[in-house]
């Protein structure tokens, strides 16, 4: 939370109104790779609070879940969500959050026996990167689509 001083550009109320007017009814699209307009339906479904921030080359949406956990979503100038990150007690609804990319996480979760039984899932590919981790009652992760990120984007901004 080092960027609050960049200023709140749009209120959650304004986004709600936008969502009512423009949101397609399906929330199945609310996910990594989808348009940022889908985030509000996801927020409502999760019962989360949301703030959004205009950064120099992207929009940053911060959701606070009922259990205190965080979900951050990052959209490029065209409004495409190019990254999501999460942290907090318990895991958020990653099936919704990752959308069509959820399968990549699942493939990476089931690889291990014996020595690799309890390794956090990770994906390191040209089109998608996923890092996960955690401990008793606190989990974190980030999923990133490099091809949708703004030119010159630094992944250190993804916290």
């Amino acid at each position, binding site marked *: 939370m080092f960027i609050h001083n960049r200023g709140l550009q749009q209120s959650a109320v304004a986004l709600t109104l936008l969502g009512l007017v423009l949101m397609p009814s399906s929330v199945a699209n609310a996910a990594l790779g989808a348009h940022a307009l889908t985030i509000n339906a996801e927020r409502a479904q999760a019962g989360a609070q949301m703030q959004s921030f205009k950064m120099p080359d992207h929009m940053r949406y911060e959701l606070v879940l009922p259990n205190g956990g965080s979900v951050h979503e990052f959209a490029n100038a065209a409004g495409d969500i190019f990254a999501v990150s999460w942290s907090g007690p318990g895991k958020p609804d990653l099936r919704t959050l990752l959308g069509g990319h959820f399968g990549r996480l699942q493939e990476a979760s089931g690889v291990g026996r014996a020595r690799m039984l309890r390794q956090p899932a990770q994906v390191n590919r040209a089109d998608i990167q996923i890092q996960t981790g955690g401990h*008793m009652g606190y989990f974190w992760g980030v999923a990133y689509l490099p091809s949708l990120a703004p030119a010159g984007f630094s992944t250190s901004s993804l916290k």
Partner: protein
Amino acid sequence: MLIKRLAVALLPVLLAACSGGASAPNSQTTTTVTPTPSPPPAIVNTLAVVMDAGPAALQVGTNGYSAFNEPYVTITICAPGSTTNCQTIDHIILDTGSVGLRIIQPVISPALLAALPVETQATGNGVGECYQYVNSFAFGSVRQADFQIAGEKVASIPFQAIGDSGTYANIPSTCSAGGGTPIKTVQDFGANGIIGIGTTATDCGAICAAGNSSAAIYYDCPTTGCSAVISRAANVTAPFQQLPNPVAAFPQDNNGTILTLPAVPQAGQVTVNGTVTFGIGTQSDNSLTAANILALTTSTSRLGPGLLSATYNGKVLTQSFLDSGSQEYFFIDTSLPICTQTALNAFYCPTSTLSLSPLITAVDGTTASGSFLLYNPNNVSNSSDVAPGLGVNPTLVKPPLPFANSFDFGVPFFFGKSVYTAIEGRTAGGRQGPYVAF
């Protein structure tokens, strides 16, 4: 409620019936010239820990395999109030990194399972639970059993019957939506069950009491199946609602544990034998003698309980922890070579043994060395042998994605040490928990 009251009333009978059970000799080290033998503990509080190839069922069939770096104990569960309808279950993972007793349901004999009541709510519906691990999740019923480990007993302890049938056969979508693989069988889990003896007194605490979910998610389970998430109170004494830390639920020796494992050679060892001792400073055999006593974060911490900091390569990693349930060290060091074999995905393969020196800092500022030797896994004789000093990189992306604030000191860090784990809110050896000490 009636069942619980009966069980409490019967506990003295159960204690009397079982007090002639197995008792390990008390190996007390003394420095006096003319030692006087310490009186044996009033309650047998020490138990063997074994690290081996795992339960028999793990190795059966074409998908069978041998366990790696798992510390196991043996427990006994009985039908509440019974001293005869009991089962002793081996190869239960002793995990300082989670909380609660969980048993793979098919491991429990049908006659005993039928006598283990499912916890119910005021509505009469049963209670189900989902519990999330870092790359997997377990779903099942919450049942009650009279529980014994070494000489320690808890009447009608709630435990999770993982992979339970009937009403509990279908995993709720909100449980699987967190991702990871479902744990249903011994081969999914690498064990017959797990006993979580981490730093909290229950497996969820205030978050589940407020009707939300943490690693634990509690469900309303009418006969049609489990779907709605429910609140469960965080009682730390009977009647429990959440799964308690079994150690916190003991009548005595309930402030923590001491896990003692021997040093293990680089080439590995087929079997490693250690001990777990219950209680800290409660009996003649569990004095707090550790050189390093390191206070940990509590349940109210924004980053979760049981944490300390590790400083590694100049970075302060605030979400670091000791965990007997992690099979290796997990940390990020982009300068170290990664193994190329598929079977060693994300393992570090240093060209020669490296001495690594993370500095551990407790929440009160106390520091301790977290140094260890990082070995190449190809130098271990047999891939299923217990092995020290193996490390895994949890993100191979370069540069690493930004959630790189953790150094997980897995079970190899416990080798050659006695590691104390003191429970939050309990005084242990004159010090307030939660802490780890070694």
